[in-house]
Each structure stands twice: as C-alpha cells, then as structure tokens.
C-alpha cells in the first residue's frame, strides 16, 4: 500500500483566499507530480518535480505554484483562489530509478471548491 498523503481531503473557500494543498510521501520517491481532474475528464499534469529544488510546470497551464524543499513534501499553493480553480487535485509519486515505466502511487486527492 502506498504511503502518500494529501490534506485537506475537502476544502470549501471563498474567492480571493490563499490556499495550500499538502502532499507528503514516506517512500523516499524522488519524482512527484500534481494532477488536476474534473468529472468525466482526464487527469491533467499541472506540476512535477524531479527532486529537491527541482520543479516544472506540466502540460496544463495552472495559476498554482509548487515547492520542493524536502524530498517527502510537495505542497501546491494558490495565491488567490477563483471559482475556476474548483477541481480535484491528485498528488502522485514514483519510485526512484523507474523513469518511464514504473507505476505512479497516488494520494487520495484534495477536492477544492471555490465559491
């Protein structure tokens, strides 16, 4: 069973608020990812990290930012939330050494609703 945790699981906030979605894994994985998923739609990669102090934007443009100060921690921040940010955010990580073929381990997701 994967040891990757996301908090909060559910969040309802007002427009303009700053929010941080937390993601932590205890497996020592170097590679971590944030995906955004809307109902009936595919997962879209919004950020990824190859290791500490390494972050890149994904294929889907996002106003969020990420940081990777520690291997186990990969938080996502929205400085000023808007209703268009309402979505489910999934964090994932991958075993070191499995660059292209290894499975992703997912957290349980953070469902964000911005009013």
């Amino acid at each position, binding site marked *: 069973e*994967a040891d990757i945790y996301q908090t909060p699981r559910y969040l309802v906030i007002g427009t303009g608020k700053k929010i941080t979605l937390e993601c932590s894994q205890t497996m020592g994985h170097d*590679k971590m*990812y944030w*995906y955004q998923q809307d109902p*009936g*739609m*595919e*997962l*879209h*990669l919004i950020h*990824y990290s*190859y290791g500490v102090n390494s972050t*890149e934007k*994904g*294929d889907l443009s996002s106003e969020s930012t990420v940081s990777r100060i520690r291997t186990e921690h990969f938080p996502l921040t929205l400085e000023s939330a808007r209703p268009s940010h309402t979505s489910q955010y*999934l964090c994932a990580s*991958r075993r070191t050494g*499995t*660059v*292209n*073929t*290894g*499975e*992703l*381990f*997912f*957290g*349980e*997701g953070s469902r964000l609703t911005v009013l």
Partner: protein
Amino acid sequence: EDKVVQSPLSLVVHEGDTVTLNCSYEVTNFRSLLWYKQEKKAPTFLFMLTSSGIEKKSGRLSSILDKKELFSILNITATQTGDSAIYLCAVGGSDSWGKLQFGAGTQVVVTP
C-alpha cells in the same frame, strides 16, 4: 501531441457479465501503458504493459497491449458490484521526467 482515448465513456452491466474496455493512444517514443482503477479515492494501479501480445492477469482482470495498432484492452470477467469504478488508461513516453498521459476514463457500473 500525445493523446489517449478510452472507450466507451461509460457502461452499465449486470453482475456476472464480462466487460471489455478499450484504450488507444498516440505517444512519442512509447515506453509503457498503465491501467488504474479509481473508486471514490485515489487511483490504484492494476497493470503495466510494455510488450505487445503478452497478457497480464490478476484474478478476473486481464489486459493486453498491441503496439502495432496502438491500443490496449482491459477485460473484467464475472463482474461484481465491487468492480464499479472509473478505469483509467495512461501512457508513458520517453520523457525523462516520467510523466504519464491519461485518458478520460471509462465509468463502469455493475448492477446486482
């Protein structure tokens, strides 16, 4: 641009039926195709396929890859209500960051 297309988008079956889910893809320098099951929580890993024609099995689930025709199928035999979920297909290319391109998923509902 990499693309993963799953079909059907959704289906409803009775317990005991067999279902076949399809995943076609276009990806630069294909490396692997993965199937996930997503219930209310996190997607959970089912299979990873890298070679054509080799069936992978886990209980009532099986999957096979055709790298020539660029598709994979996931079969579920003797379906149970616990098989109700969204089944996601994802493809990985030669990108060194290990990113996966996901399809929109197939929602399977198994009725008693």
